[in-house]
């Protein structure tokens, strides 16, 4: 009998490879999920509230009610992701039991553990985690994350933090590629990551797993910007269903990720999309209300 293996890192990280060049959209009900699928989303993130509402409502943000997640899973045939709180491995167990296709251990929800993340190797379901820089990215991968995204600043519609985080990761990798061997041990220590993962990143010239952009993407041009900066794909949270015409915007952002290098097509798809989400400048948010610094 031939061995059949499930839950391996190859099938976890391999799934993220299939999402590349695509857009993952936040949805809060089956109707939105259907709109996302019909307009070309490669996956949806099932939530109770989009990040802009979580931000506005305040209070503790937790895993979404499983009945909402199940209703969305029953409605669409594309992969369904859901968020657990940072370090809340039981929420992750619940999500795995529901059969979601990916768990996002997310700073958008209120962290359950301010020191430790979920040990993701123990799970069959793959995880995506946020990062602000190479150190955070590689620490999450060593904990078992099969996919990385920039944190950006979720629920703002302001792309500035996503740009900062993507540039930081890419700059660190470029620096790594020019680094002599004898400086690697110190670099690993400075970043707080394992030497093995650092060497692997240096050899590949990129993160060892798929890296999406997230946190503030609101327009087709934002999405193309992140792709040109080196993202493998894009998460759009509040940007679609907090805009004036979600279907058109979803449709346009999908095309802007495929044709990210073709300004003529971008110009065409950016027309007549109605109002973008109102947004808040990330710079005006008090430090203790920022989501991205919630984990390291």
């Amino acid at each position, binding site marked *: *009998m*031939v*061995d*059949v*293996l*499930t*839950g*391996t890192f*190859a*099938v*976890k990280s*391999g*799934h993220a*490879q*299939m*999402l*590349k*060049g*695509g857009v993952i959209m936040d949805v809060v009900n089956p109707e939105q999920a259907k709109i996302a*699928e019909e*307009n*070309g*989303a*490669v*996956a949806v993130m099932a939530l109770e509230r989009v990040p802009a509402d979580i931000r506005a409502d305040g209070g503790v943000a937790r895993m979404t009610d499983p009945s909402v997640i199940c209703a969305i899973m029953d409605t669409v*045939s*594309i*992969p369904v992701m859901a968020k657990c709180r940072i370090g809340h491995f039981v929420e992750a167990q619940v999500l*795995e039991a529901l*059969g*979601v*296709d*990916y768990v996002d251990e997310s700073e958008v929800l209120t962290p359950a553990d301010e020191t430790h993340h979920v040990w993701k190797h123990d799970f*069959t*379901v*793959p995880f995506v985690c946020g990062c602000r820089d190479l150190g955070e990215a590689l620490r999450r991968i060593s904990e078992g994350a099969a996919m990385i995204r920039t944190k950006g600043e979720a629920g703002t519609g302001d792309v500035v933090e996503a740009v900062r985080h993507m540039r930081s990761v890419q700059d660190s990798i470029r620096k790594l590629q020019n680094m002599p061997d004898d400086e690697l041990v110190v670099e690993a220590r400075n970043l707080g990551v394992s030497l093995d993962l650092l060497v692997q990143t240096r050899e590949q010239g990129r993160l060892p797993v798929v890296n999406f952009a997230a946190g503030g993407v609101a327009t087709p041009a934002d999405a193309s910007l992140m792709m040109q900066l080196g993202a493998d794909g894009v998460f759009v949270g509040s940007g679609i269903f907090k805009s004036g015409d979600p279907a058109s915007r979803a449709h346009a952002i*999908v*095309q802007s*990720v*495929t*044709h990210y290098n*073709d300004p003529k097509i971008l110009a065409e798809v950016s027309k007549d999309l109605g109002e973008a989400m109102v947004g808040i400048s990330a710079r005006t948010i008090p430090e203790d209300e920022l989501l991205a610094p919630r984990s390291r």
Partner: protein
Amino acid sequence: MMGRQGKLKIGVLAIQGDFAEHIAALNRLGIESREVRLPDHLEGMDGLIIPGGESTTLSRLMDLYHLREPIAGMAREGKAVWGTCAGMIMLAREITEDDPVPMGLMDIGVHRNAYGRQVDSFEQDLEIAGIGPEPFHGIFIRAPKIIRVGEDIEVLASIPSGEPVAVRQGSLLATSFHPELTADTRFHEQFLRIASLTAGEMDSRRGGGPEQP
């Protein structure tokens, strides 16, 4: 055997999915490739790979950018076309759902995500006809299941439960797994042999006089 292979140009549909992994595999074999996002990118290509990805997304973007007809045209001309996973769904004659709409180029019926959700994705060694006796490591991700094969379909590999997972019909290939996610290039070489053969035949037809309509 290798024939024209060195000069082959292979298009890789790059509208969504793991096209970069296919291009990397072709690079390792010294084959020139091109990312295909618009119909004119197919010009001059000797073959096409449709990668893994999300088939509903691929289907919509193929409609939007009018890629179905030119790809079907390539297949009709006898050029080599290979679909992996979502690519296989797009090549099928029929699928069990209404969405996405396949191109109907291969006489197979396919059930999307039939092996289960992501937690059921699996790895398994396969014996594949024509690539040598060493087992090939199959990576199946939310994989589509081939539930019907037509008379002209040659089954290249099956899993122990009996379902075919690699099939060929003339110059068309489909796999429900992802050779591009492994370092093993033997399946890509198989595809290139077919592409090389069909490109060679077209060359000699062209050499023999004016092309027939």
